[in-house]
């Protein structure tokens, strides 16, 4: 139980063998310079399968239950999309094949770019970024090259304090300087404060819409006006686009650059940490700055074009996470315009339903209605010696997953809850009931929380020890 694959190894076992080699190794031995074995485990197919089945049994996943992780939009991943992305006509393509051999792939990418442009109201999209943060980086590069092209030395990116951590990090690795602005008492950007912070140094305002409190920026029109008036651009982190599908098109309200997370909004699975995909959309004026190659439709078919002297260049070896794109494309095809709007409407309904039920039990700093998610605080449990992390761990004991915790930073003891539209009312009710029971337990027997979890494959792990002395690879001596 709990052994690593190395400990299950026995020299001489095989889970896979190649067909015999029909070419001689003769005269090539001198090219072999590795001394000694790599140290790979040797294990039979049955024991290897059992190894991974054992590990699989220790994972929570969307097919087991709800993931109320705010900002993560963990929705159901349709099975048909997995099947389609697994078709040999997709998985077997080499990226250096002649365009004539990959017309289907290019058609799909072109179709997805167009669909995303329509959904977001943007002029053009690139599918190259491999994740949301990669999209942010790409967006920052575009802003950089845009201002460089205009001979403007704008170095500051304004970021609200409620923003996701990747926002300032993306800004920084691009050579820009992030400047944080405070949210107002409604959890929103205050146009008055913004007006003061934005100036000729400002390259971009990087906002999240709906923001990470689950709130729509009510003054968004004014916010955009202020930024544009200062000659700066508005970047939208579209990780929360789920709430806006068919309801608001960012391009229509003046967003210049944005990314979406296909692995959230468009239902591609998260794979325990990836792969994702973070396409970036820009307004028509900025289209030439998008990374190359771009997929262009010509009369004779699709081509990959590198013709652009304004492009920021490449940001991925090839065309991004193609396999993920297939799933997102299938998803959009299946839902169509009406289905996508229903996604947004039901995600908003589910969030408000759950918020409404839980806001008495936990405290709600910023009043609703919310969009697709909301942020509660467990600070009312502090008096019982209970923290948000304890609530989270206790949820695990009930066989549920915890919400996002301690984020956004501006809410004390935050519990960020996004139910998503694929959860049924019964599931929301069951979750709410457990949340209520836990609040009750916090008062009556707080040790149930502080000592939680007890019913999981392991109990709370010593993270401090791990970070003092990380054990990052298995070594025989250590056992």
């Amino acid at each position, binding site marked *: 139980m709990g052994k*690593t694959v190395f400990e299950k190894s026995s020299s001489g076992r095989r889970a896979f063998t190649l067909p015999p080699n029909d070419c001689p190794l003769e005269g090539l031995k001198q090219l072999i310079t590795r001394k000694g074995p790599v140290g790979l485990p040797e294990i039979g197919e049955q024991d290897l399968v059992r190894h991974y089945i054992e590990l699989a049994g220790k994972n929570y996943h969307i097919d087991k239950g709800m993931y109320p992780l705010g900002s993560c939009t963990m929705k159901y991943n349709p099975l048909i999309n997995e099947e389609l992305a697994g078709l040999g006509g997709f998985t077997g393509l080499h990226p250096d094949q002649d365009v004539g051999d990959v017309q289907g792939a290019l058609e799909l990418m072109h179709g997805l770019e167009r669909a995303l442009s329509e959904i977001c109201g943007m002029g053009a999209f690139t599918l190259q970024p491999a994740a949301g943060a990669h999209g942010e980086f790409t967006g920052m590069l575009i802003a950089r090259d845009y201002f460089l092209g205009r001979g403007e030395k704008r170095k500051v990116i304004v970021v609200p304090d409620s923003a996701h951590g990747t926002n300032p990090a993306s800004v920084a690795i691009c050579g820009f300087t992030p400047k944080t602005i405070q949210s107002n008492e409604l959890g929103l950007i205050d146009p008055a404060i913004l007006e003061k912070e934005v100036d000729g140094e400002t390259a971009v305002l990087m906002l999240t819409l709906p923001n990470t409190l689950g709130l729509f920026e009510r003054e968004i029109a004014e916010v955009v006006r202020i930024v544009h008036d200062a000659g700066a651009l508005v970047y939208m982190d579209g990780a929360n686009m789920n709430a806006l599908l068919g309801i608001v098109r960012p391009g229509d309200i003046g967003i210049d650059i944005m990314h979406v997370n296909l692995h959230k909004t468009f239902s591609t699975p998260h794979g325990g940490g990836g792969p994702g995909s973070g396409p970036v959309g820009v307004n028509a004026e900025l289209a030439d700055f998008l990374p190359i190659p771009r997929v262009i439709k010509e009369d004779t078919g699709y081509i990959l074009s590198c013709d652009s002297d304004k492009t920021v260049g490449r940001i991925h070896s090839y065309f991004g996470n193609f396999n993920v794109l297939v799933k997102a494309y299938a998803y959009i095809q299946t839902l169509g315009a009406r289905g996508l709007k229903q996604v947004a409407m039901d995600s908003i309904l589910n969030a408000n339903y759950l918020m409404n039920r839980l806001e008495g039990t936990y405290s709600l700093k910023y009043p609703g209605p919310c969009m697709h998610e909301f942020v509660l605080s467990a600070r009312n449990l502090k008096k019982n010696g209970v923290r948000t992390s304890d609530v989270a761990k206790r949820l695990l004991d009930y066989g549920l997953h915890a919400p996002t915790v301690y984020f956004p930073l501006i809410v004390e003891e935050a519990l960020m809850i996004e139910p998503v539209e694929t959860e049924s009312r019964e599931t929301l009710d069951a979750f709410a009931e457990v949340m209520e029971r836990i609040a009750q337990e916090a008062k009556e027997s707080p040790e149930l929380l502080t000592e939680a979890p007890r019913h999981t494959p392991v109990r709370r792990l010593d993270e401090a020890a791990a970070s003092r002395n990380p054990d990052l690879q298995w070594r025989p001596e250590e056992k």
Partner: protein
Amino acid sequence: MSYVQNTDGDREAMLKAIGVSRIEDLLKPVERSLRVEGDLDLGEPMSEPETAAALEAISKKNCPASSLASFLGGGVYDRYIPSVVRYVLSRSEFYTSYTPYQAEVSQGTLQAIYEYQSLICRLTGMEVTNASMYDGATALAEAVLMAHGIKRGGAVLIPRALSPRIKAVLRSYTKGRGIEITEVPFDERGEMNRAAIDDLLAEGTAAVVVAQPNYLGVIENAAEIAALAHDRKALVIAYVDPVSLALLSPPGDYEADIVVGEGQSLGNPMNFGGPLLGFMATRKAFMRQMPGRLISGSLDLDGKRGYVMTLQTREQHIRREKATSNICTNEGLCALSAAAYLSALGEEGFRDVAVQSLSKSHALYRLLKEVSGCELPFGENFFQEFVLRLGSPLGNFLKKAKAAGILAGIQLTDDFPELGPGAILVAVTEKRSRADLERYRDIVKGGA
């Protein structure tokens, strides 16, 4: 169809609980003038069979390399993938789980990635490795940023014989920081010109990148290059092909400081070039400068072994603008593939993959050597890939090869004009049979 579960009855009951009468009432914060009028221009919803038919039709407009005898490589390879790898990846416990933020219910993913890290450490001979990067190109770019950070500035030397796509990504990643990148030409054997390195290395050089084997397939004398760099206090970044490491010295042996590479060919399908699997390993001393997620073993309250994400302070959750990089979602599932792949093949099997790729690529090289008009500009010092020069534009040759079911290679002339006209990069993996090689030779013979 849609995956929403609420029925009209549910909606009514929920709205009643909230105390509003229509979902639209919840949209109050969104000014009406900002809203979309009518439907998006996206077409009608489709049923599952319709979506399937539409996507199948699109997939059939492709002619996948995997269905032909493919000699395309250049970073992405057509290799055998054991059924057990596909099976593991098909388990929804792995593919539908989120980033393991709640360690207690994510031990499956965490242990799998810990094993992946251990395997990469063994392959590279390094002390620490992260849980994956987007691809080999961004991994190299991040390694350069990391080296630049460690050395607090300085230029970086890279081999000219590096994938042109990787070089392009490197430029995009470094231009914001104003890092100077200089290409070191290759010599007549296709190796990184050591004299040029010597010339270009300055006291302040941050790092020298060595690609092993390089983009043209040539095996570098990495140890010599590393020594040169270390002599001048520059860091050594090795960009390596993971399969080659079954046979070539691990970068740990020549004391590389950072090791990166593209792991697609460890059990991942080609997928038109994505998702890929960037890996990165380094010395323990640089662990805290390394970007990306790290999984560590630890003990639980009861003293039971378990796994956690660690050193998250390096990541953007906490330090935000001071994070070592912005990477958050990575390529976890591809790392899982790699771990399952390496475990399925084991020591012997993995070595066999490398040996077959080596011996088959050399067998083709030898067959072509016999064909007149067929130039092989570099020597026999290569792993799995080599440059073939036919001397004239390739269009016709490639077409003929394709008609015979062969994808002959990647055209090089645009990116490497110094190789002259008609140069292609030919990759031979364990999947090719001797008959494929002979067919290749016959086409060259017929066309040359």
